[in-house]
């Protein structure tokens, strides 16, 4: 069965277990082409595991259907760059040596970073390099696992603006994991809230409702701090 022509991804009755513990239970949702889906939930809710299942990196039951001829760009949550003497140019050339300069432009970096080691980059620069890695093969879908962890607020804002531009100008569908209400509300159309299974799959505006926040995080106080910073 193929996915509906408007959709890029359809997930139904997804279950993922690890070490006899159910991490994702009966998760179902659909993602429309060219939209952004924010995945939210407390730590341990299975957000990263969901990404790993979508990338076919963990065993699962249920159905994950991608549209045909999909190219996925992925940026993981954690990288160990501190111990590896590797330049930005070498890193990006692993994947596609031809498109290195082009993708740097797409993420707003100039060519002077090419010969810098990954370990000396600022948090914001490193995230942009990772996004460049993800877009270098001109993907249709980007998966971002907390793309602004360890990044200051100004760089964070710039990164989300850039993701927004990628979505609008290149028609890329974005799935991102975030804890930030502001990001979820302003940069995504839909949100999928996880806590063992699906709590809600709705318009992103819903995230500002106290009842939804309470259902996801218990109190929601951890998020309120950043809610109205803009």
């Amino acid at each position, binding site marked *: 069965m193929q996915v509906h022509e408007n959709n890029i991804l359809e997930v139904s009755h997804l279950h993922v277990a690890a070490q006899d513990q159910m991490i994702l239970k009966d998760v179902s949702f659909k993602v429309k082409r060219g939209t952004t889906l924010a995945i939210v939930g407390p730590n341990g809710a299975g957000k990263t595991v969901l990404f790993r299942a979508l990338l076919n990196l963990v065993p699962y039951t249920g159905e994950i259907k991608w549209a045909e001829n999909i190219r996925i760009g*992925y940026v993981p949550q954690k990288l160990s760059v501190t111990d590896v003497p590797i330049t930005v140019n070498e890193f990006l050339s692993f994947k596609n040596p031809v498109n290195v300069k082009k993708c740097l432009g797409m993420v707003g970096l100039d060519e002077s970073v090419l010969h810098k080691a990954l370990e000396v980059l600022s948090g914001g620069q490193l995230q942009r390099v990772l996004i460049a890695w993800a877009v270098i093969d001109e993907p249709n879908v980007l998966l971002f696992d907390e793309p602004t962890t360890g990044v200051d607020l100004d760089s964070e804002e710039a990164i989300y603006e850039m993701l927004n531009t990628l979505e609008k100008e290149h028609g890329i569908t974005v799935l991102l994991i975030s804890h930030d209400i502001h990001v979820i509300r302003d940069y995504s159309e839909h949100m999928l809230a996880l806590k063992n299974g699906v709590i809600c799959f709705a318009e992103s505006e819903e995230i500002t409702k106290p009842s939804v926040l309470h259902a996801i995080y218990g109190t929601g106080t951890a998020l309120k701090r950043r809610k109205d910073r803009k």
Partner: protein
Amino acid sequence: MEVSVFSVVIGVFVGLSAGYLGSLMVLKRMALVGDALSHVALPGLALGILFNFNPFIGAFLFLFGSALVVWHIERVTRLSVETIVGAMFTLALAVGILIIPQPDLLEALFGDITKVTLTDAIVAVAVGLFAVLLTKMIYNKMILGMISEELASSSGINVARTNLVYLLLVSLVVAIGIKIAGSLLVGFLVIVPAATAKNVSSSLFRYALLSSVFGVISSVSGVLLSAYLELPSGPLVVLSGIALFLAAVLAKWFSSRRGQ
């Protein structure tokens, strides 16, 4: 003592391959595994000597088996690999020392370049080149796996299989290095040239190149000094390599002071 061309050729290819493969071992933070792995060769060497077959084959078979065990432990246990490997390989060293004939013990532990033959040189060239070329093919995949296993897997890289190929290649290189450095000290050639290069490298290309060059310099200097001083080659390889390491540390120290 006259320097044999064969021993210099072995020195070049052992140093080159150990330095290059070692550059990955050091980044994987498996330096102790590399060192301990080399000790496993001893029982294999002993069996070769006792039962009159080529000790290199015995050493390689033991190293090969151990590499498989290390790989399996790394995949399936939550225990520290280095703890298990350290205990297991010390046992191998103890058993090897007990069963190897006494006259051959020093040569097996510390290397001996006086008895190298044309066949030894051919084996070192073939195995060294094979290991370097194959490692070159998996080098970027290994690096990506170290930066992020998820990033590597999502790029279609089978990280576990790549690690296995790498460990088997390390076994091969350690086996050919025993002639020069001995089973007790050959692990040094996998670790220290790469550690030296890491002090003075900011790009992957430079790091891999310098690891290989420092491996060759350490190993060939050890061979030449061994012939000149008529002492076992293994300890002299170590001393040459350590001299380079200290020079690199000093160079880094001076350059960081100048930058202040």
